[in-house]
C-alpha cells in the first residue's frame, strides 16, 4: 500500500556521526511517516543539517542505518538514492539556465524527453516562461523556486530541505512557507525540512522534532510540543516559558504540589513529566493574566506578585516584565484585545494563571545541571525590588 504513495517512510536507526572527537549526531532514532511534512528544528550546530546530509548520502554515518520504507539505503551512493535535496542558498548551477538546472537530474538518469516534465514542474512553482534565464538573473525567491523544482522533478521518495528559506526576507519567507505547504500537499512526497526558525517549523510541519546537541529532545505535532514541552530546552526554544525551579512536596488528588521560593503551586498530574524531586514549573507568558491585587485573583488560580519593570508594546500584545519578590523575572503577554488597560512601569501587580496551563519538567538532580541554566535567586541582584 505504501508503494502506491509517492512518498516513502523514512527511518533512522541509531544514526551517529562523529567529526574527529565531536559527536554531531548521537544515536538518532526517528521515523518519518510517508507523505507527511516533517520538520527538524534546532539551534545551529545541533546536528540537524548533518542528519539531513546523511540521508542525502553526502555524509557517511559513523554508525547506524537509514531505511526508506523497508529498503536500506545507508550504503548507497547519493546518485542511487531516491532522495533529493533543496540546498541552503540553493546551489543552482551558474553555467546552466533555469530549464537545464531543472532538467539536470532527469538528464543524468537518461530520461529521454524531459521538456514536458520540466515545463510542468516550472509551472508548479509558478516560473512559467523563465526557462532560459540564468540563476544570476533571478531574485532570491525565484532561485528558491528553481531549487525546489530541480529537486522535485526527479519525483524523489523523500525531499530534503536544508534551511530552504533562510536567505529570504521575512515577507517572502512567509509567502514561500504557504507555497511549500501547498506543493507538498499537491505532490504527496515526504518532506523533511531542516530549520532553526520555530515559527517556520510550526507553520509547515505535521510533525516537528526538536534537536539539541545531536539528540532529539521531543517529537510531536506543533501543538503537542508547544502545549506540553518535554524538556526545558523545548519549553524555551519553542516559544517562551517562565520556568520556576522547585521541589515536589506531595500530591493532592490529581494534582502535584510543588514548593518554589516559599510558595505553593499545584499542577495537574497529567501535565507533569516528573512527579517527585527537583522540578521546573513552566507557564507560557500568554497564559498569564495581570491584576492589581491578590484579591482580584479568581478562585483556583495560582498567583505570583511583583513589580512591572518593563513594558513593550508589540502590536498584537503587550509584553510585560515582572520582577518577583524573590528577584526572579516573569514575562507576561497581554493580548491587545482592547479590554486590557496599559499597566505603567513600576506598578505592583499580581500575575495569575489556571493550573491546567502549567507544566512540570525534570528539574535535574540537585547539584546537577539542568538542561537550561536556571539562575538561583541570589544571582539576580535584588536592588530595589520586592514588595514594599
Amino acid at each position, binding site marked *: 500500500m505504501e508503494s502506491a504513495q509517492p512518498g516513502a517512510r523514512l527511518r533512522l536507526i541509531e544514526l551517529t556521526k562523529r567529526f574527529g572527537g565531536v559527536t554531531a549526531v548521537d544515536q538518532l532514532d526517528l521515523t518519518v511517516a510517508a507523505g507527511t511534512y516533517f520538520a527538524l528544528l534546532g*539551534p545551529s*550546530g545541533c546536528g540537524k*543539517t548533518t542528519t539531513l546530509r546523511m540521508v542525502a548520502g553526502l555524509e557517511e554515518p559513523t554508525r547506524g542505518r537509514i531505511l526508506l520504507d523497508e529498503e536500506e539505503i545507508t550504503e548507497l551512493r547519493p546518485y542511487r538514492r531516491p532522495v533529493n535535496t533543496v540546498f541552503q542558498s540553493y546551489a543552482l548551477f551558474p553555467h546552466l539556465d533555469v530549464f537545464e538546472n531543472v532538467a539536470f537530474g532527469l538528464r543524468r538518469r537518461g530520461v529521454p524527453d524531459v521538456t514536458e516534465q520540466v515545463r510542468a514542474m516550472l509551472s508548479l512553482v509558478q516560473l512559467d516562461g523563465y526557462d532560459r534565464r540564468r540563476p544570476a538573473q533571478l531574485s532570491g525567491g525565484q532561485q528558491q523556486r528553481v531549487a525546489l523544482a530541480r529537486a522535485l522533478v526527479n519525483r524523489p521518495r523523500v525531499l530534503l530541505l536544508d534551511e530552504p528559506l533562510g536567505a529570504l526576507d521575512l515577507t517572502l519567507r512567509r509567502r514561500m512557507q504557504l507555497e511549500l505547504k501547498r506543493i507538498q500537499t499537491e505532490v504527496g512526497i515526504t518532506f523533511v525540512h531542516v530549520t*532553526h526558525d520555530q515559527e517556520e517549523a510550526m507553520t509547515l510541519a505535521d510533525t516537528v522534532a526538536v534537536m539539541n546537541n545531536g539528540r532529539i529532545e521531543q517529537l510531536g505535532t506543533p501543538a503537542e510540543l508547544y502545549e506540553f514541552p518535554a524538556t526545558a530546552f523545548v519549553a*524555551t526554544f519553542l516559544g*517562551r*516559558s*517562565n520556568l520556576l525551579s522547585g521541589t515536589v512536596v506531595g500530591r493532592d488528588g490529581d494534582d502535584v504540589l510543588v514548593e518554589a521560593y516559599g510558595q505553593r503551586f499545584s499542577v495537574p498530574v497529567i501535565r507533569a513529566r516528573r512527579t517527585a524531586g527537583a522540578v521546573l514549573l513552566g507557564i507560557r507568558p500568554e497564559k498569564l493574566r495581570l491584576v492589581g491585587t491578590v484579591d482580584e485573583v479568581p478562585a483556583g488560580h495560582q498567583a505570583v506578585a511583583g513589580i512591572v519593570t518593563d513594558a513593550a508594546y508589540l502590536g498584537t500584545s503587550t509584553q510585560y516584565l515582572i520582577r518577583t519578590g524573590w528577584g526572579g523575572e516573569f514575562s507576561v503577554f497581554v493580548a491587545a484585545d482592547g479590554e486590557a488597560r496599559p499597566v505603567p512601569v513600576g506598578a505592583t501587580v499580581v500575575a495569575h494563571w489556571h493550573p491546567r496551563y502549567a507544566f512540570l519538567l525534570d528539574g535535574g538532580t540537585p547539584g546537577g545541571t539542568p538542561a*537550561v541554566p536556571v539562575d538561583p535567586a541570589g544571582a539576580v541582584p535584588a536592588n530595589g525590588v520586592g514588595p514594599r
Partner: protein
Amino acid sequence: MARRLWRRVADHWVLAAAALVLGYLLLPVVVVAGLSVNRPSSRLSYDFHEATLDNWRDPCAAPGMCAALLRSVQIGFLATAISTVLGTLLAFALVRYRFRGRTALNLLVLAPMATPEVVLGTSLLALLVAAGVPQGFWTVVIAHVMFCVSFVVVTVRARLSGMDRRLEEAALDLYASEWQAFCRVTLPMALPGIVAAALLSFSLSFDDFVVTNFTSGTTVTFPMYVWGANQRGIPPQVNVVGTAMFAVALLLMAAVRLRGRRARQPAPPSRGDAGAASERPVSAEVG
C-alpha cells in the same frame, strides 16, 4: 567488502594520477640534486659516476660561473626593486581609480605576458640597435623590469581587489588622514601581495634566458653561462646552484607560510549548520 574496495579504487585513482604528475614535475629537480653530488667521468657525460661533495665545497671552481651568478643576482635585485615599485603603483591606480586611458593601460600591462619571449627580446634588440644603444648590464635590467612589471601588476591587483574597502573607510571614520589610512591599513594589507610579486619578479629575472640573450651584448648572466657551457660540457657546479636555488625557494615559501599562519584570520565557521543564523528565542527564566 569487494564493493567497498572497488569504491575506494574508483574514488582514489585520481590521487594516483596526480602523484604521478607530481613525480614528473619533481623528477628533474631530483636529478639536478643528484648530479650536484656527482663526479662525472668526462665533461660531456651525464652518467652518475661517483658521489662527491667537492662541487658543494667549492662551487666557484667552475671558471666564470660565480661571476655570472653574482651578475644574475645583481640584475635580479635591481629589476625586482624597480618593477615592484612601478607595478605596485600601476596596480593601485588600476584598482582604485577610474581614469582616462584605463582600458588601454590594462591592455598594455597584459600584452607583454601574452607575447612570446623571443618576440620581446628581438623587438628590444631591434630598438637598441636602431637607437645605437650598446647592449650590456643595464639593457638587461631594463628588459627584465619590462616583463616583470606585468606580473607585479597582476599579482598585486589580485590582492587589492580582494580587499574590503570598508576597512579604509573605517580608518578614515576613526580620524585617520588619507595618508595615514594608506600607511596603516591599505599598505599592510596589500603587503603579502607585494612580497609575492617581488619574489616572482626575482625568480623571473634570475631565470630569464631568452630576453637576456638578445639584450645582454657580452654580459654573461647565470642562464647565459649555462647556455654557453652546454656546448663545452656542463660543469657539475651548475647543478649545485640549481639545487641551492630550489632549497632557497622552499625556505622562502615556508617563511611566508609561517608568517601568514600567524596573521591568519579566525577560522571559518564549522561545517554542518554553518550559516544558519543563531537566533534563539530569548528564554525567560525565573530563578
